């Protein structure tokens, strides 16, 4: 009787030890791909390539449609699905008033950079064309490395001026 209890305890203890060891040992095999979907959270722009390099702070808003800092405009951008590093590309910036009217004759300037690396954009992008319906063509966009980028627009229309900062994380 006592012998059997001892065996049971031993078996349980051994099982626990086995499970722990097996978990530790097997974790690296399935860990990365298994944990990735759990830990990646929301996919921003379909990308998350951070590793090693300082990760972006949590809680950043990666939305491509935002209200400007003082609530003056509603702004959204569209660009390539997966922005490739070092590839010059265009954005289309859509600007409308807070109540949803397209803004026709805005003056838009572009700025940005990587806050964690202390550098700006590698190019000097500009709005080169008004495409109608509140859409503005932004040419000369380029990002030269993976990580967290900020892209800032200063928008002036009539007596209204406001700013907006988009966050994006690029892989690479």
């Amino acid at each position, binding site marked *: 009787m006592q012998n059997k209890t001892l065996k049971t305890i031993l078996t349980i203890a051994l099982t626990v030890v086995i499970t722990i060891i097996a978990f530790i040992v097997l974790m690296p095999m399935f860990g*990365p791909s298994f944990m990735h979907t759990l830990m990646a959270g929301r996919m921003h722009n379909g990308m998350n390539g951070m590793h*090693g390099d300082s990760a972006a702070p949590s809680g950043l808003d990666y939305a491509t449609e935002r209200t400007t800092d003082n609530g003056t405009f509603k702004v959204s951008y569209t660009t390539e699905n997966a922005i490739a590093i070092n590839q010059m590309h265009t954005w289309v910036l859509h600007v409308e008033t807070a109540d949803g009217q397209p803004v026709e004759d805005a003056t838009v300037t572009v700025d940005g950079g990587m806050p964690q690396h202390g550098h700006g954009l*590698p190019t000097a992008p500009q709005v080169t064309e008004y495409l109608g319906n509140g859409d503005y063509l932004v040419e000369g966009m380029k990002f030269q490395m993976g990580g967290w980028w900020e892209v800032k627009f200063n928008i002036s229309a009539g007596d209204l001026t406001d700013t907006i900062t988009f966050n994006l994380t690029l892989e690479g």
Partner: protein
Amino acid sequence: MSERSKLLAGFGLLVVLVAGGLGYIFTRPTWTDAELVTLKTLWIGSLPPLAPDPSNQYGDDPAAAEFGKALFFDTRFSSNEEVACATCHLPEKGFQDGLPLAQGVGTTNRRTMPIAGTAYSPWMFWDGRKDSQWSQALGPLENPVEHGGSRTFYAHLIDENYRTEYEAIFGELPDLSDRSRFPEAAGPVADESAWAAWEAMSPADRETVNQIFVNMGKAIAAYERQIMPTASRFDIYVQAALEDDTQTMNATLSAEEVEGLRLFIGPANCTRCHNGSLFTDNSFHNTGVPTVESLPEDTGRAQGAQDVLADEFNCLSAYSDAEPNECNELNFMLAEGEELERAFKAPSLRNVTTRAPFMHAGQFTTLQTALNHYNTAPASPAGHNELEPLNLSETQLNAIISFLYTLNSEITAP
């Protein structure tokens, strides 16, 4: 089966599982999905086919490449008849010279840059003061310490030695025989008499000479465009990793090389600048590289950006074959800002271990010195050093160096 043997069998199974798991870990380096994505971007297989250079309509003309190759190796195209492009860009040394400062007819203030893969770069030279291979090739020809000649001097050499080749590609070569109109030595160069002779020429005659000079550059570029790195051990490894071929991975890179690669794409932050299939973003970075006492002040990209905007042979010039909207690198170039101060172009790291000494004036004689510099990230002599200290150990730095050797491969050239 007795209780004891059951227990033994169970224990045996456990041992096998643990040993198998451990063996798996130690034989197979594991990469996360994100790391695999990064590895793929560095893989030579991700290099897109080379797009035509819109500024050079002869860029993909085989006859132009052949003519350009002849010019590249012809030492007659120099003031002392001893210097060709190949004097500093030696094919047997990966199209560079292994010297801290380039030696033409004199000594320059910068280190010779390698050529392989630069057809993919929007900017040439350490400071990016040229925006195409053809306009780059023209710079050294008129530099007093490189080839040391002038553009009428070169036009006459073409006339005397390469008339047939030239005309087959570019059409009829104008008559240059009147030396009062086309002096032996004339061009916007340091030599005062050649400069004065150039000023004295009629605008139309200068234009004639410029066109010949530009065509020389376009032919040389047609040759240089084809100078490319090939697949290295690293590329074989990545291809195997993408195909989950553990056996080939293990046979290709050692554990130390793999560790170096892991550091390279991770904690060492190397891919901030050395990214993409050519291990360069072709952009400009201030990495706090020390000055050289004997050399004049070098502001790097800050000056280079102004130079390329003013360059008579840039993409927007009349000598370029591109439409203005095909010059977007120049149109949207960052021309000002503190970041350009003492920023220099990141060279490709393919074959880097064969290219000591390192940096724009050969400041570092070994990879160890270069990596120690990155590891400590000292303040820049001017402007702001982009780097932060890495605090990696000696072992880790050595692993990165081991990894860099896996990027060596043959360079193909026509």
